[in-house]
């Protein structure tokens, strides 16, 4: 058993490339999501990815189209419901988002039951298909990751300002409402790209946990953003590596590793 065995098969190379892209994108955008306290919105977007993919399968369209269309639409819907994150209280916001979430899950199960042949696919929609990634998927993901990271880099400072201190940011000329909608759209894109690999339920392992862990470790923004990416990469690579030599699924290892690290840091940084 050698490390080079990992690259013996094309599917494994694809999994490593896609995993890397997903880890970097999800952990960067996830860092802002945690700072903005929008993890619940992120959770909802990852859940609507499930009915989106199921609907696409039912309509005979490629599953990734379903992910992107529904996550994009979901992000816009969330922006509309929460009024750009400005006018409503947090409790109102989460009630609205929770309602969308429950409805989306219900729809997903309807589509799955309408499409009888999908029962084996249900597992991969919810828990991901790390090891069946095509070259085309890798290319799509590369495009999306680069686009999301470029936009995120461009808006990083005003976005952080608006997230930390919306009133002062607005007075300084930061377009707070537009940034809020734009961020949800980016989040939707990143979730759509990530859920194809990790599945709709395990997106969170890469979106929230590395960012939450990094923010526990340091309060320096640049450092904790960097740490978040490093943690996501480490758990993804390790998870893929361990899974390759074991009979258990990748998603389990990735989530366990990132959760384990989070718990460890929490205990140490009490």
């Amino acid at each position, binding site marked *: 058993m050698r490390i080079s065995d990992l690259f013996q098969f094309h599917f494994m190379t694809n999994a490593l490339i896609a995993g890397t892209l997903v880890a970097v994108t999800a952990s960067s955008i996830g860092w802002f999501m945690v700072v903005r306290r929008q993890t619940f919105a992120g959770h909802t977007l990852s859940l609507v990815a499930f009915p989106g993919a199921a609907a696409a399968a039912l309509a005979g369209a490629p599953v990734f189209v379903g992910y992107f269309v529904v996550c994009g639409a979901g992000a816009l819907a969330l922006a509309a419901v929460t009024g750009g994150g400005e006018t409503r209280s947090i409790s109102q916001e989460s009630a609205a988002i929770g309602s969308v979430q429950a409805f989306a899950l219900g729809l997903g199960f309807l589509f799955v039951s309408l499409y009888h042949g999908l029962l084996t696919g249900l597992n991969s929609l919810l828990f991901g298909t790390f090891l069946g990634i095509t070259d085309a998927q890798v290319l799509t993901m590369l495009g999306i990751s680069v686009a999301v990271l470029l936009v995120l880099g461009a808006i990083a*400072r*005003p976005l952080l300002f608006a997230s930390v*201190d919306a009133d002062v940011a607005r*007075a*300084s000329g*930061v377009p707070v409402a537009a940034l809020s909608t734009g961020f949800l759209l980016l989040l939707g894109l990143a979730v759509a790209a990530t859920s194809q690999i990790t599945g709709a339920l395990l997106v969170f392992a890469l979106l929230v946990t590395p960012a939450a862990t990094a923010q526990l470790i340091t309060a320096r923004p640049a450092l904790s953003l960097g740490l978040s990416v490093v943690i996501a990469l480490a758990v993804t690579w390790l998870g893929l590596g361990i899974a390759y030599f074991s009979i258990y699924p990748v998603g389990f290892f990735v989530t366990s590793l990132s959760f384990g690290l989070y718990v460890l840091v929490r205990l140490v940084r009490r």
Partner: protein
Amino acid sequence: MTQAAELHAHAPVEESAVRFESAAVELGGRQIWGDVSLCLRPGEFAAVLGPNGAGKSTLLKAILRLVPLSAGSATILGRPPGAANGQIGYLPQRHSFDAASRIRGVDLVRLGLDGARWGIPLPGRANAQARKRVDEAIELVGAAPYAGRPIGRLSGGEQQRLLIAQALIRRPQLLLLDEPLDSLDLTNQVSVAALVRRICHEHGVAVMLVAHDVNPILPHLDRIVYFAGATAVEGAPREVITSETLSALYSAPVEVLETSDGRLVVVGTPEPPSIHHPRHAH
């Protein structure tokens, strides 16, 4: 209006930091206040007083053009409202940062300097200069010992000082502070007020500070803007906080008493009007 107040109000426009003439603001079709005229010169410290819902915060927002005037005119630093926002430091009314806020005081102050700019700051001379300015602003408000700690872990007074540093970092000519003393105990109220006065006088910054209680800041004030009865009066402290002026403003008998140690107590203010505009309306 006394002769001194008359002279003050007729100062040339270019000599005023903030000037309102017969201004009014409407929110949701209802007039918040009207017929407001005031003049604040560079380097003057003014308190904005009045009951809840009288439109004190709205005045600051009108200066920044976060809400538009529905009548009258305003000149801010020689320009129309909104045009000079880059030279205005603003500290909005707020609840303090909660304990989970994982960002340091220095980062918060830095955001006030270049947080509105797009792109990522590159390491280099500009970045080093920016850091130096952040350190200077933190030094100025005396927040250096705790500026490196997460903002959520700091006390209300410490947070307030860092927020004032944030508002000061772009070297504004006008500082708008919305109830910066509210969450503080009396000792901190007095020391933050003294800090604001020092900045005001040493750096020639005009300051408008919204407050509930005039007494901790009274010795430092040059002007008072008092909001009540859907309008406001402006003048020197001893002209405004008088039984005559306030009774006329409230359209009800109000008495101002002075204690032996120079504190002013306003007695008999009617209940604020029952139709409030929401305190956090944007």
